[in-house]
């Protein structure tokens, strides 16, 4: 797990109050929705807010692309890294 992946995992757990999940147990490739994380659309909004506040990243309005970015912590980390260097 990269540092950014570990940070995102920890932030998502904290932000969403997922106290039964341990950051160290989470696979960065685990699906955020319909998977091990079991998140929903409201959580997606919260994660979007987190990305804005923490990394100053704006989420686009391309649904398919957003879905791809939000698939797992790994895809999110790649998205954040790409936006930062862009």
């Amino acid at each position, binding site marked *: 797990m990269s540092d950014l992946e570990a940070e995102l995992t920890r932030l998502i757990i904290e932000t969403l109050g997922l106290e*039964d999940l341990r950051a160290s147990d989470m696979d960065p490739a685990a699906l955020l929705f319909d998977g091990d994380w079991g998140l929903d659309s*409201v959580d997606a909004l919260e994660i979007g807010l987190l990305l804005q506040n923490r990394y100053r990243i704006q989420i686009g309005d391309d649904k398919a692309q957003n879905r791809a970015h939000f698939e797992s912590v790994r895809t999110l980390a790649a998205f954040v890294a790409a936006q930062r260097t862009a």
Partner: protein
Amino acid sequence: MSWIPLARLLEPGWDNRPVTLDGLDLRALQDAAARLAAELRRRGWTRVAVVTDDAWRLAVALWGGWSAGAVVYLAGTLGSDSAARLADQVDGWLGEGTARPDALDPIGPWPEAPAANEPLDTARPCLIVWTSGSTGAPVAVPKSLAQLETEVAAQEVVFGARLGQAAVLGTVSAQHLYGLLFRLLWPLAAGRPLDRAQCSFPEDLIAKTGRLDGALWVTSPAILRRMGDGLAWSNAMGRVVMVSSSGGPLPADTATRIHARLGVRPTEIFGSSETGGVAWRDVDAWWRPLPGVDVTVNADGCARVRSDFLPPGEVVDTADAITLVDGGFLLQGRQDRIAKIEEKRVSLVAVEAALTEHAWVSDAAVQLVPVAPSRLGAVVVLNDQGLRAFLEQGRKAVTDVLRATVRARVETIAVPRRFRLRAEVPRNSQGKLDGPAIAAVLAAPLPVMPTVTQTTSSADGQVTLRLVVEPDLACFQGHFPTLPILPGVVQIDWAVRYAREHLGLNGRFSGMENIKFAQMIRPGDTVELTLERDPDGRRLGFRYACGVAEVSRGRLLFLDPADAVT
């Protein structure tokens, strides 16, 4: 024993008969009521509030007050603010104890007075009970003697034969409508002896039952759920002819356990202060309306009650969703327990039902918790099977299964985000969910120390604590290769902490001797910890016990407090 209508109880023609288990009889009630009535007339009181835990004094206050033509307000269960507001509306207070220092004791002593001969007016609203209004503030519900009389007569029709001459014991207050009807008015009309006191503890109830040939227990789910296997059940077995339960739903596994212990299945009464009793059930899941009660479904899917126990012509629409079945109805939960999450209306009852129907769960309460985003939290009580799963698979595996169970039944947004696994769901004395207490449990982080439910200091340097070992305790988290138990080191740590807190022990821990672990402590257990320190503060004896069985004991050694300073 002949039936005496409530309005005619004071007429002198009836044969004398026992009223209370401690030997007071109908003549004594007639005499005391006549004396109090004369006193109230002398004072010109027509609106009287009464506060008393003693069913005899309550009976004297009611018949004395009614005989004097007064309206009697049951005030014993009001909060202090509501009682203060009531004080402006009444002429005076009757009662005993410290609640109202200005209250007159209904039993006087008052001068002798001629017996009342006129029958009481049955149509006049003569009693005020309370229901919680939409804002939570109590709303007055007036009752006439005709309503009360019809209701206890209906109970006698349904349950009288099985009761025979059983005595009436109660764990609920007689100052609520249910307790008033079951513990006082019905026994008075039927001539069954009644216990003046409210039994607050299961031990008390069982001990009293052991001295009787037959007993009716007037109870609530709150106390039935707390009646564990450690009680002297054999003293009560075969002596209890009926157990009534009202105030909230009785978990099925509690009903089954009581049945196994007593040989009688609890009879649940569904109703409210406003409607009075509506329906009852024991074996079946569906409810049978009491005689004189008609239940239909209104446009909102909720029970509409027409009843002889209501004022003539009155119809009450409840917030209880029902479906009709042949001969009665099924309760489908309260319609007013709706939470809004992200603009979606979520039925808390539906989530609770999904949880409690799982094979691991015996009780559950769900409400919003202020985590971000605002989501539901669940306080869950695991049954033996659930605790075994918890022990074998760990907390996360259990909460994952419970979440999946809920997700299969309701919208994802209603899946509880936070779980608290507790020995019990916080409820008030009437068995209703205690919202603020549930919120506190949900808001707090997972505990590191057990819940202390009782602290007794019997002698100098000695203290006994009753500890509920919640499954949520941090020392039970994670996965256990073998069955998780409370490790000895944690037991010793708790003993030291509580000794420092309660016994002023402040020397540094230096060792231990004669430590013996005899039995395991498991999640969900309630244990008693007794601590005894030597006068010089250098030795601390500790003993954990679960019921009568000793769990562990030993002596802990401490350096002289003076040494600890350096």
